[in-house]
Each structure stands twice: as C-alpha cells, then as structure tokens.
C-alpha cells in the first residue's frame, strides 16, 4: 500500500519535471565575475540530470568586495549560499570561523586526484581540506627579446640590464605592481621567499621575517631607486604594468600570463619578440607568486551533498578546460595542460608548470586580510623603505594583527 503510494508520488514528480524546477534542489554558486561561468554551470546542470540545478550569482569585481559580501552573509548564517568561489588566501579565515565545510571521504579523494600540489595546498588549513582548487595562477618575467638577448634571472640582473638600456636611450623600465594594495604584498612575499624566508612561521601563529626579509627589503629599495623603476612604480597595478610594456615604455614586466593574450590582441606586431622566463630571484632562482580560486561549501547550505557534487563538476577537467581556453584561467588539474587545445592558448604552459613547482604561496592565517593591509601600508612607497626600520615596523604591526589587535586603516 505504502509502496504504491510512493511509486505514484514518484511518477507524478517525474511527470512534473521539465521546465518547471519543482523539487530540484537549487545550488547557489557565488563566484567572481567570469565570462563563461554560466556555460560551465549549464554543462554541469545537464550532467546532473535533475539531481541539482546550479544558479550562478556574480560577486563584485574587486577581491575586497567579493570577500566582504561573502563574509557578511556567512556571519549572518545565510542559507542562500551553497558553493563559494574563494580567493586562495581566504581558506584559513573561513575555515577557522567555521563557515565552510571540510571535504572528506570520496569527495576529498576526487579533489586530490590529479590536482597540482601547490594549488591543492592553498585549500588546506591545519591539515584538513576545506576547498576544491578551481584555477591557479603564477607570475612570470616577461621581456622584449629585441632589447635584451637573454632574460635576467635576478632582480639585480634586471637592474643592470635596465641600466645598460637606459644608457643606450632605449626603453628600460621593469614593471612591477607596487601600488599600495595586494600586489605589493605579493611582490614582497615572493622576494622574501626567494631569499629563503617567510612572512609567518609555518603554522601561521607567529611572525618569521628574519634575515631573508631584511635582504628582500634591500632588494626592493634598490630596485625602486634604480633605472628599472618606472616613475609611477608606487601607483602601478597589474594592468598598468601590462599597458606600459604594450605601449613600448618598458622592457620587462613581472605579471600573470593573461598579458600574453592581451599582447596578441592589442599589439600583434610585438608578439614575436615578447618572451617569458622564470620569475626573478634574489641570488638564485626566484619563487613566483601563487594566485587562483577554490570552491568551498557553506556551513549553512541546506543541500550540502548536492553542493559538493556541483562543486566537483564545476572544477572537473572539462570545466577547467573551458575556463582555461575561453577565460584564460590556468587549470589546477595537471592533465588539462597536455590537452592539444592548450598549446595554442598557452604556449608558456611548461613555464607555468615549472613555476608551480616552486611558487611561494602567501601566508596562511585567518587574519590574512589584516596582515596584507598593514604590509602594503608599511612598504608603500618602496623607494622609501629603510630596511632595518621598516622590518621592525613590519614585525610589530604584523604581530599585532595576529593578536586581533591590528587596526585596519
């Protein structure tokens, strides 16, 4: 009797399917603006066969605005969020606050399988997996081979090459994003890591910043006062660095791989001599900054099982290929790089994979927002860094931030 009723109900439900969404759990994805994210979500909806339906919600364009909207909703326990697109630096903060779910069992196994080690590590906090890596990113050194035959391997090398170019009356600048924002922190973190140090201790509980940080500050100060420094260095973001090279004012830039596609579109005649090399170091090989985005599942999601499934689909190899080839976002699954279509869009893909081996992730701490804000405030403008004094100030302010005593400007 009960069984017949159940069957009848199921049949009615199946008959009721179609355009109406009655009964299909809606999974709300909150993600940064990305042109083809809806296409990726549609593909997953087709594959889900009615188990779930992903609704794409677009967050603000800037990272601070994205984080603010997410944390404000999570702090209020909003059940309308299921899958969250997170910057790689937010994992610790959201996990520690108890706002995102741990990935366990087969879900975690599927995330780990075939995923590159460095991006995977950005999704881990205190040994537990809290997100699924979606895209990654590394900076490379881009240079004009018509001006310099061999790419410099260190910041000192760029300064020397810039000196020679300037003396010869040629474009000499080496562009770095060094305005007072996250870009300056990214630069500092990579130079410190290249010098063999770190901003925080491995657990993220205490300030490290020893002798390597002092060397890093000396390098940044020297660079900001050298012939390589564009006069607008203290106001340069990634995009201004790209434009300076495209405009013919600069010979070098350290930047994300999107500059290659941009050069191909804006200045195709310069593309044949627009080359790439490994991120510069201090006195050995450099360690590139590590960027990217991960998917996490909200603690307050009412459909967490479906949300995990949806997130896994949104970051599977096919989805990552769409994001890579159509939106220029480097994949986190290693196998996607060997796809034939990738060779056309990513001629520099081996350099990206090499850089991912040694890339320097930013410090893992729940108070990353504060740590980053005070570092960029203390280091700006780079030309006025006074290494021992600046280091002492950094140690004090970052230490305060770790104790919840940091005040954001």
């Amino acid at each position, binding site marked *: 009797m009960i069984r017949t009723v159940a069957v009848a109900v199921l049949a009615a439900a199946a008959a009721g399917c179609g355009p109406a969404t009655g009964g299909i759990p809606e999974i709300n994805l909150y993600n940064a603006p990305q042109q083809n994210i809806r296409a990726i979500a549609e593909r997953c909806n087709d594959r889900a066969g009615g188990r779930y339906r992903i609704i794409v919600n677009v967050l603000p364009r800037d990272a601070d605005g994205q*984080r603010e909207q997410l944390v404000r909703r999570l*702090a209020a326990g909003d059940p309308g969020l299921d899958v969250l697109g997170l910057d790689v630096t937010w994992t610790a903060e959201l996990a520690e*606050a108890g706002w995102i779910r741990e990935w366990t069992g087969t879900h975690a196994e599927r995330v780990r399988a075939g995923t590159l080690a460095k991006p995977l590590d950005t999704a881990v906090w205190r040994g537990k997996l809290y997100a699924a890596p979606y895209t990654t990113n590394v900076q490379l050194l881009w240079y004009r081979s018509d001006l310099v035959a061999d790419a410099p391997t260190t910041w000192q090398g760029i300064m020397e090459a810039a000196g020679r170019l300037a003396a010869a009356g040629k474009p000499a600048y080496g562009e770095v994003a060094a305005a007072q924002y996250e870009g300056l922190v990214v630069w500092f973190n990579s130079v410190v890591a290249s010098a063999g140090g770190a901003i925080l201790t491995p657990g993220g509980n205490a300030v490290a910043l020893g002798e390597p940080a002092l060397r890093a500050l000396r390098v940044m100060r020297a660079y900001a006062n050298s012939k390589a420094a564009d006069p607008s260095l203290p106001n340069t973001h990634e995009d201004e660095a790209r434009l300076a090279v495209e405009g013919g004012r600069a010979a070098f830039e350290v930047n994300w791989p999107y500059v290659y596609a941009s050069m191909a579109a804006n200045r195709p005649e310069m593309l044949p001599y627009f080359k790439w090399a490994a991120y510069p170091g201090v006195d050995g090989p450099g360690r590139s900054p590590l960027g990217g985005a991960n998917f996490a599942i909200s603690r307050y999601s009412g459909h967490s099982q479906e949300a995990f499934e949806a997130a896994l689909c949104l970051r599977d190899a096919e989805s990552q290929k769409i994001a890579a080839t159509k939106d220029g976002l480097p994949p986190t699954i290693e196998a996607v790089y060997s796809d034939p279509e990738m060779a056309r869009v990513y001629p520099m893909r081996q350099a990206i994979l090499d850089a991912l081996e040694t890339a320097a992730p930013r410090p893992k701490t729940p108070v990353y*927002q504060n740590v980053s804000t005070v570092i960029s405030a203390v280091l700006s403008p780079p030309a006025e860094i006074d290494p021992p004094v600046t280091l002492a100030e950094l140690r004090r302010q970052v230490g*305060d931030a770790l104790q919840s*005593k940091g*005040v*954001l*400007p």
Partner: protein
Amino acid sequence: MTAERDLGERRLALWLCAPATLIMIAVTGWPILYSFLLSLRRADLRFPADQEWIGLANYATVLGNPYWWTAFGVTALVTVVSVAIELVLGMLVALVTFRTIVGRGVVRTVVLVPYGIVTVAAAYGWKYAWTPGTGWLAGLLPAGSAPLTEQAPAIAIIILAEVWKTTPFMALLLMTGLALVPEELLRAASMDGANRWQRFTKIVLPLMKPAILVALLFRTLDAFRIFDNIYVLTNGAQHTSSVSIIAYHNLIGGLNLGIGSTMSVLILISVAVIAFVFIRVFGAAAPG
C-alpha cells in the same frame, strides 16, 4: 480628591508611554549596550574559540593606533571646514530665497535639488567627474593628475561633495530662522539710519541665533558621522578614512567585532560631546 486623580492620570500616562519606551529600549538601548559590551571583549569572528573579556584593552589598542588618529583628524577637518562653508553659503542662499519675490516656489525647489539626490548617486557622479580619462572636471586639471589618489586633493573633493550636497539643508533651517525676524523691526532700524550690514549683524543674526545653533548642531553631528561620500570617493585610501569608515572597515571588513565596537563607542562619545558643547556652552535649545 484631585491628588488622587493626579496619581491616577500619572499612572495611566506611564502605562500609555510604556510600549513606546520598551520599543525604544529594544531598538536603540540594547544595540548601544551590546556594542559597549562587545568593546570590552576580544570578539573576532575569525577566532570563535578565542573570545574573552579583556577589559579596556581594545580602547588602549584603538587610542594608541596612528590610523585611528589620522581618521579622527580627517573627520574633524572635514566637519569644521564643510560646516563653516555651508553656514556662509547656506545663509546667502537663505537670504536670497527669502527675499525672492518672483517665482519663490521655483527658486526654493531648485535650491533643494542637490539635497534631494541620493548621496551615493551624487558621490559616484563626483567620482567619475574627477577620474582622469572619463571625467569632465579631471580634464580641467594638468594632464596626468589623479586628484582622488592623493590625500590633500581627495579630502578637498570630499569636502566639496559634502558642501554641494548639504548646503540646501542648512539654507532650509536658516530660512525658518529668517522668518522669525519681525519685518517692522528692520524697518524701524532702517528709519534710525542703520545700513544693510548693521541691520544684518545687529538685528537679524541675534534674533536668528537659536535657529543658527540648531542648524550648526544638526550639520556638525551629521558631518562628523560622514560615511557615504568617502566610501564611494576613496573608500579611505591614502589616509582619507573618517572615523565611521575606519569603524566599518574593522567591523565588517576585518570581522573584528571588539575593535569595531570600540570605535563605534568612541564615535558615540564624540557625538555626545559635540551635542553637549552646543547645548550647554553655546546654549542651543534642544530641537523639538
């Protein structure tokens, strides 16, 4: 007999007031008390396990922090300069519109237009106007200057936006004061040989003093809590934060309820001091 009735009426009055009082306590008293309690705690949403009572440590942190004092200085500067300019301009506008004979309604409506525009929308207008490449005002400056990316020009633009926006409000309040000045007094003074300036300083201003003080009190309290203009124009970059902006950044952006609430309490104290000074020292009559 009457005493008994008085008592009964008083009791009834209390009962009638009770619902409103309870609602006021619930919606204003409790949030203020709660934020005061939070300001005595280490209450950081990112460390839910490390919440504890820490006495006045948050106050020591905030009051010992240069960012807070920079924001306080910027707020004070914006308040004093913008309210001073608004008072002068508002008085001129009030005098002109009060004396207008032709199309008085039209003139008053036109003057009020900036006040009627949503502050955030107006602030975006100013922001784009001053952005190199898109703005008509930025185009008037020497090439390559981006006024919103430097402290002094950015603060000047914030003050300009504030003045443009709230001068009509000031003018409106002053106009009610002008209406209090008896016309025959001015005519009598004029008969006695007082010139225009003397009539203004010796008769109009003294009679308007209560209205001016109320207008100044309103505007000073408003200006001290300035938020939306700065949020849109610079969001506090290049040391242009006001106290409200810095409290917002720490409370909402930083998720640090302890530090953010401490700042809110300090802002409340500042506002209370401003009101006290106006009412007790200058003798502004409490509005209402």
